[in-house]
């Protein structure tokens, strides 16, 4: 049953994989909703492991990046891990220019990203 408007979520090997519904993550109202939905993924999880799969994302505004930063802090505060994968080159550039590729662990493909989660 769909509970989210802005993301799709499924589980692989105890990792919550998240994909974005929108190709262009830019609408301010949708980004606010996106932020809430991402944070809700950590509500019931101890040590949440999240993979954000950017497949099909053609644009990602800096406001959306801010939501990821907030999510990252929440996940890490809970002892969890977060990964990003499948970023198009232009979107990958965003994280490069902003030096956020030193904050987020980024992998080319989903499977590779799932394998990179450290096991307890």
């Amino acid at each position: 049953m769909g509970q989210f408007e802005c993301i799709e979520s499924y589980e692989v090997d105890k990792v919550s994989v998240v994909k974005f519904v929108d190709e262009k993550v830019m609408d301010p109202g949708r980004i606010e909703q996106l932020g809430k939905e991402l944070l809700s993924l950590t509500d019931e999880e101890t040590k949440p492991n999240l993979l954000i799969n950017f497949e099909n994302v053609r644009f990602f505004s800096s406001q959306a990046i801010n939501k990821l930063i907030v999510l990252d802090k929440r996940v890490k505060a809970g002892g969890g891990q977060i990964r990003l994968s499948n970023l198009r080159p232009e979107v990958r550039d965003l994280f490069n220019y902003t030096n956020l590729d030193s904050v987020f662990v980024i992998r080319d493909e989903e499977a590779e990203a799932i394998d990179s989660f450290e096991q307890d």
Partner: protein
Amino acid sequence: MNDTTWVWQYDQRIPSDPKSGVDAIRVLLEQLEQREWPAKCVFGIHMAMEEAVMNAIKHGNKRDPSKHVHVLVNLSETQFYACITDQGQGFNPDDVPDPTLDENLEKTSGRGLMLISNFVDTVTYNDVGNSVELVKHKQV
């Protein structure tokens, strides 16, 4: 003197709300795509405009409904030019902390100006700091 031949112009004063900013940018993006600008150029222009317009709305005009943002965009066959002006007090871009420093990385602000400068060819602020000009040349 700039003797560029502009083939399209957008010249509007928009309300100081983010939705109006997004709508204005959509009009520009449609033009760029119709004129078959390269996808990477369009992405860069989109990113720079998003940051500049949202900065004007949120930081310049503080979302004051009594204030507007003047958005001027000119397109030639090979050049994008925009001038975004708010009705705020202005600021000094040099006073904005570097968001790429370790101590600033996890802050949720300060990133926009740097993204603007990375995605267009030239960025010029007026003396007051309430108006910015962006120029990007089409890469073939």
